[in-house]
């Protein structure tokens, strides 16, 4: 059991969850539950690697991923905001489409997975922070991650700023509270909802890029492995507040890193610890919702 290794992996694993959570907060706040983050993440991972393989340039890969994910985000928002479909069902559709489109394209290219090891140098992408890496324990935990990791942590602050210190953030929160009221004072609720969902899509694209390009330089089928759903759990636990949801994202990252690191020393029962993140999520969600409902008791059944 290596303590530093676990914390290092925690930061690594938390990054895609963190991106999803920070983007998904906006969708949560405008009252459109974006269940399709899983699919968007998968699309981001897939299209970034695909464009990278086709063009050989990092920039094209990133732009392609962002573009494709924004399109899927636009489809989601068109279906659930403009046409007023049930966001859960259209989100489900996006998830299904993402899994099957990626599998379909892989099959048509007759590849088991897309490997871009020869284009992206994973070890070369690691950022070593000059002064920090010399500090004994902290240095080995904090330094040596990929660039998007640090951007993710900066994004916590940026999304807090956007949510609580700008006009747009106020609009987002108000539209979520009461859409009719905002329409009556002349704020276009639909537009705000669109932007909020698209912010979520954008950050899911970056989560996908982090997962596929930066960490592995590889895309395999279903590599998202429920990260989007974990992010939804984190958003619900933190009620869409950036700092607290980020903390939950870190917690779930810790669970994932524990499951990987404990597996190594577990021996025959190694599969057992793979369930750890999921059990933790159920437990944490249950605990948080019990605490929250105890705080504000409503008579009867509240449909939320």
């Amino acid at each position, binding site marked *: 059991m290596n303590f530093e290794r676990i914390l290092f992996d925690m930061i690594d694993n938390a990054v895609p969850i963190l991106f999803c959570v920070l983007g998904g907060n906006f969708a949560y706040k405008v009252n459109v*539950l974006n269940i399709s983050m899983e699919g968007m993440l998968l699309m981001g991972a897939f299209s970034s690697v695909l464009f990278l393989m086709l063009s050989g340039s990092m920039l094209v890969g990133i732009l392609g991923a962002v573009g494709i994910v924004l399109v899927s985000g636009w*489809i989601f928002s068109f*279906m*659930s905001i403009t*046409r*007023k*479909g*049930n966001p*859960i*069902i*259209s989100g*489900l*559709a*996006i998830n*299904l*489409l993402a*899994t*099957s*489109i990626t*599998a*379909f394209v892989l*099959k*048509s290219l007759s590849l088991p997975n897309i490997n871009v090891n020869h284009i992206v140098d994973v070890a070369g992408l690691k950022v070593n922070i000059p002064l920090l890496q010399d500090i004994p324990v902290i240095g080995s935990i904090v330094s040596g991650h990929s660039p998007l990791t640090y951007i993710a942590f900066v994004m916590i602050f940026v999304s807090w700023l956007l949510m609580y210190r700008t006009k747009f953030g106020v609009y987002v929160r108000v539209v979520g509270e009461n859409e009719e009221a905002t329409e009556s004072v002349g704020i276009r609720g639909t537009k705000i909802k669109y932007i909020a969902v698209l912010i979520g899509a954008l950050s899911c694209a970056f989560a996908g890029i982090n997962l596929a390009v930066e960490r592995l330089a590889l895309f395999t*089928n*279903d590599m998202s492995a429920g990260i989007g759903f974990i992010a939804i759990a984190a958003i619900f636990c933190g009620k869409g507040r950036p700092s607290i949801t980020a903390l939950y994202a870190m917690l779930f990252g810790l669970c994932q890193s524990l499951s990987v690191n404990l597996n190594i020393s577990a021996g025959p029962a190694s599969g057992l610890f793979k369930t750890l993140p999921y059990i933790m999520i159920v437990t944490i969600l249950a605990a948080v919702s019990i605490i929250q409902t105890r705080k504000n008791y409503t008579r*009867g*059944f509240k*449909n*939320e």
Partner: protein
Amino acid sequence: MPKAPFFLIENASYKIKTLSQSLFQDPILGDVSTPSILPSAMFIKLGGSYITLFFPLVILVFAIMYVVIKKSRFGYEVTAIGKNPMFAEISGMNVRRKIMYMMIISGALSGLAGAGYMMSEKFKYTLTFSGVPGLGWDGMLIALLGRHNPVGILIAAIFFAALKTGADTISIFSDVPKEIVGIIQGVMILFLAIDFVNAQTGWFKKMTAKMGRKGAQA
């Protein structure tokens, strides 16, 4: 956002889905798997067909669920809760308890589906036991396609099973990968979510109106 009848019927459909799969599909071997179950635990095949004893069992369960949803007090309350939980609560239904019952029933039905699928077709547990998007997701889609109506769900389930098994045949005899079915399902669910064709043209309303007029004349 509890959509109570949705979950209930979803799982009813899940089991029908499973039955239809056992109706059409050949067993496939997996890589990582448990040892096979003993032959004495397998459902026997009826006659020379692929239909096993699980099929009549599921039809029985389907009939029971139909009666429960359509004819019983519990089913009526479930439908009412799905339409408007607040109203149901105010008119004296115990919504929390009913939702719990529904979850338990849906869990039981899904469990039955899994067990039947295992004992009539798979015979061993593999990592891709219920397929990659999962039979449960298919079940949700079927519930949507069948408009949360038991008979509609039966038709939708058979349609989906045909789609899935048809995909297997397509991938054998042509270059088209069978993942195309996932894409078709995704597009379908996307348009169903907003009731696209009907909302754009209103053909269903027109048709029912026409039929009503004809009925009145006759």
